């Protein structure tokens, strides 16, 4: 069995894939890579199926020792990947030979770097997924020094491309597309304008569960307690302490109103913003109040 050993995991690194579906009713969310765009690109570059597991490395610092010939690609936040000290390209597939060490520096922009290995990371699946769910405490362990990861044991079609000239995460302001609802009517019209007009600064207490934002206060039109309800990934939940954009390890239910939901492509970029960076929200469904559907009553 081909494998690699984690020499140092850096500040925080996990195995992720596309997550698990169908367990939300038992209290387990989807989980999976928080920047799906970069994750998908990494798998494509090495010819993996979209659901193959890869490493999600937060703030770089990873080094792994290959025990066999591995075909690897690195995407997401550019962390100056090196093989035995020699720079290899970002968004490029390359070979790491047995005995060589792949290292990542700390990225200067963005948060999460993806490392895909042709054949995938073959740790045991839990409830149909190899994703570590940090909130539910499910799936493979967070990477630790010395961890041996089965890697590259599956095979598929060989990739037709080995370089993808796509944009890396950016510094500065990020404009995020979202759609209103389900609970925009729980806020005042002023608060809804505030959401779209305000500068929302990313708080340091952000993680795979959600990105916490600081900014102007959003006044509620309804003040009663919201009975807990299911929340979608990308939901902008608004507790009194300030909005949270839920990433993939979010709780399956929440008791604060969700004013809108961020589109997946934008959410992938939200997953790469750093504390201190500013987010602006742009509604893509135009109407500042959700479309009203006729209420239907039952006998």
């Amino acid at each position, binding site marked *: 069995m081909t494998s690699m050993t984690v020499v140092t995991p850096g500040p925080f690194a996990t195995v992720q894939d596309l997550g698990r579906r169908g367990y939300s009713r038992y209290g387990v969310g989807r989980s999976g890579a928080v920047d799906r765009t970069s994750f998908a690109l990494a798998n494509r570059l090495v010819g993996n199926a979209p659901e193959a597991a890869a490493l999600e490395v937060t703030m770089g610092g990873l080094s792994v020792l290959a025990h066999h010939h591995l075909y690897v690609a690195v995407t997401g936040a550019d962390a100056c990947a090196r093989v035995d000290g020699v720079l290899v390209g970002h968004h490029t597939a390359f070979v790491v030979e047995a005995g060589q060490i792949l290292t990542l520096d700390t990225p200067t922009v963005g948060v999460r770097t993806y490392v895909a290995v042709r054949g995938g990371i073959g740790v045991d699946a839990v409830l149909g997924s190899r994703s570590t769910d940090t909130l539910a405490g499910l799936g493979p362990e967070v990477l630790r020094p010395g961890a041996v990861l089965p890697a590259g044991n599956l095979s598929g079609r060989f990739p037709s491309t080995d370089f993808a000239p796509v944009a890396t995460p950016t510094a500065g302001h990020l404009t995020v597309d979202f*759609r209103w609802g389900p609970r925009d009517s729980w806020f005042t019209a002023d608060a809804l304008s505030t959401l779209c007009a305000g500068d929302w600064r990313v708080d340091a207490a952000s993680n795979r569960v959600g990105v916490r934002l600081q900014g102007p206060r959003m006044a509620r039109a309804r003040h009663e307690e919201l009975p*807990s*309800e299911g929340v979608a990934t990308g939901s902008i939940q608004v507790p009194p302490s300030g909005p949270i954009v839920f990433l993939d390890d979010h709780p399956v239910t929440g008791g604060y109103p969700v004013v809108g939901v961020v589109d997946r492509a934008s959410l992938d970029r939200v997953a790469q913003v750093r504390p201190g960076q500013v987010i602006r929200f742009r509604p893509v469904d135009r109407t500042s109040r959700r479309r009203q559907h006729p209420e239907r009553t039952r006998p």
Partner: protein
Amino acid sequence: MKFSPCGTHHLLVESDSLDEVLNCFATLESDPPEGVLDLLPAARTVLVEYDRDRTTYDALSSAIAGTQIRRRTDRGAPATEIPVRYDGEDVAFVQDFLGFTRDQLVEWHTGQTWRVAFTGFAPGFGYMVGDLEDRPVPRLEEPRVDVPAGAVALAGEFTGIYPRSSPGGWRIVGHTDAVLWDLRTEPPALLVPGGLVQFVEVP
């Protein structure tokens, strides 16, 4: 029923009561409209995840609105028996709050069939409803740092069991050896939405 969009892949169905939610959930689960991927019941809502290649928000909300929601009957349905030692740290508080003696508290907790309304908080944690609706039990002001797995507790209008050790602010009335979460079983949760639970006192 009321429908609201939640982004591009989910819609929220809102009902007036928990009973309606459970009826809606059971009906949609046994006979899902085209394109439904997942259902998540909660206190007053069912969150529906759908496949955008197979349906749209408008088509799916119309389909759900046009579905004949069947009334569930609990008659004859088996209840999961949970053996409990009523030795929790908060027994005295809860019995005083509800105006019971210790024996009356146990009689009350074991003398009714509880229903799992929904799960959340942690994998396998079921929020169970029973005869508590008009007497919401206050949570601890300072949550405990470490509540053991199997702690049977009350808060608000719910009773629940901690599936694993975790921080928690519910009032603990007892402990059980029942396994609430087991990855080797399908489903891994002992308590599932709509399920019935019967507590039984053990020494």
